[in-house]
């Protein structure tokens, strides 16, 4: 009974940060990698299609320099877009919460825009903005923007009407209500969107690079695929995964430091 309670508590808000990477996980990971290696050798699969873990590790080692430079390019694009998108989203969310007209006209339109397969627009962005930094940053910003906008509007409107009415009665202005009630209440919502937006911005930057770029992880993916250098391709995918996980983990860490109180249940995912 008691163990079950403890478990329920530990997993009750199953963010990535709350799940400990224990011994069983490491064991499974090792088993999977070994099984992958054995399976590749045993089945005699064409190494061109499925390389073994050793070949992938070798490709990782051989191309450390290239991988690092290109990762930095992608991270820079994603980070720039991430910051821009979040700032714009917070500004819009504040405007939507305070203006009935803006909210009822513009917010539904933005929700519909959100349904547009963003990444499908990447080819047009190439037409608009060329092959430089701009289309990647814009796409990453747009992805982060939509995620944060929805969550911030939810978060800023989450406090009780009674609390806000009380502050109103005490003669608090809009700015004071925003600072003392709405922003603190929206913090957990904001961090949810930060965690999602961090990996989302990475995906967007990689997708934009895939279309047309001279550097970056998306460019490497395309490059390795064209050369049919499958071990290198897998190595790039591994790097993409690690960067995505690190981005998510970083935001989870910041959340842990900033949100010290028990956060309310937020629809994660």
């Amino acid at each position, binding site marked *: 009974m008691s163990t079950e*309670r403890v478990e*329920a508590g530990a*997993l009750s*808000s*199953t963010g*990535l940060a709350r*799940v*400990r990477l*224990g011994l*069983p*996980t490491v064991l*499974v*990971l090792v088993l*999977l990698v070994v099984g992958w290696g054995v399976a590749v050798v045993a089945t005699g699969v064409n190494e*061109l299609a*499925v390389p073994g873990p050793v070949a992938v590790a070798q490709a990782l080692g051989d191309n450390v320099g290239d991988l690092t430079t290109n990762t930095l390019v992608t991270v820079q694009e994603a980070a720039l877009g991430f910051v821009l998108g979040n700032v714009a989203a917070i500004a819009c969310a504040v405007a*939507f919460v305070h203006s*009935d007209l803006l*909210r*009822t*006209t513009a*917010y*539904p*339109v933005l*929700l*519909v825009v*959100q*349904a*547009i*397969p*963003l*990444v*499908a627009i*990447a*080819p047009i962005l190439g*037409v608009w903005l060329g092959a430089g930094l701009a289309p990647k940053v814009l796409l990453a910003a747009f992805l982060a923007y939509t995620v944060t906008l929805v969550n911030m*509007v939810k978060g800023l*409107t989450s406090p009780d*009407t009674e609390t*806000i009415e009380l502050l109103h009665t005490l003669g608090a202005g809009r700015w004071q209500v925003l600072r003392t009630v709405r922003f603190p209440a929206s913090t957990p919502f904001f961090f949810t969107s930060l965690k999602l937006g961090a*990996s989302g911005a*990475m*995906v967007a930057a*990689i*997708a934009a690079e*895939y279309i047309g770029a001279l550097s970056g*992880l*998306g460019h490497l*993916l395309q490059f390795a*695929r064209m050369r049919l250098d*499958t071990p290198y*391709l897998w190595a*790039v*995918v591994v790097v*993409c*995964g690690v960067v*995505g*996980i690190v*981005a998510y983990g970083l935001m989870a860490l910041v959340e842990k430091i900033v949100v010290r109180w028990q956060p309310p249940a937020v629809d994660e*995912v």
Partner: protein
Amino acid sequence: MTVPVQERRSAPAPVLVEAEPSKLAARLRTVRNPLLGVVGLLVLWQVVTATGIVQFFVLPQPVEVVQAFGQYGPQLVRHGLATLTVAFTGFVIGTVAACACALAFTYSRPLRSGFYPLLLAMRAMPLIAVITILVVVLGTGYSPRIVVTALGAFFTTLVNMVRGLRSADGVVEELMHTLSANGVQRLFKVRLFAAAPYLMASLRISASSCVIEATVAEWITGNVGLGYLVQVSGYTFQLPLMWAAIAVAAALTLIALALVGLLERVATPWVPHEPAVAGVQVSKLARRKARA
């Protein structure tokens, strides 16, 4: 003596009659502003493109996009159906697999502690990188596209279902235990009901992301589908057709969202559903505030 009774009886009738039009008016009012927003955007788009402020190769006129619908109708339907096939198959496979895994993780501790953190970590993997590998392994047919779409739905639903299955009220669980209910009974009478709203929330998310993922997958591999159409028409500068394809993809997403919303109302009637437009709820609060 009889008079008050009659009064009491006749009282509700006029209220009912009055309620109808005011409800309709309220509904119209909630629809009016979003419609204004959409129409305003379209008009702005038309004006900006027709006067040449925005060049035709950057953004075609909305009128041209509508014409593209007429001109390329059959093509749009064919590619739209291909995307729908990929998105729907992936959605179903991913969701079913996620529910099975979530059940396994709920009842087997070794499985959960071994695999769940790994799967959570994999959630942050850019699927666009994964599909590049899948194309090499599985070829350029439907399968890599369906697998990627299924993966997206899988991760979304897995996290929510694991949480949902454990969200059952501890007191109710203990009560069931006291009533000597076995595991299967607890699952069907308590846990599945507790998990249903979580499942619905994840279905809503994956309904839209499935279409998007299918489109992106088609854009990287394959010779049919809306993603493919977007790319090809982009490269050949048939921009009205490209925008028409994007519009179809967006429409598919919205229809999928509406269908899941419907399912949500039917399957979990006890959950107060969120309105499609979050603003409606907010403006109700605002109106109450204004009155106070």
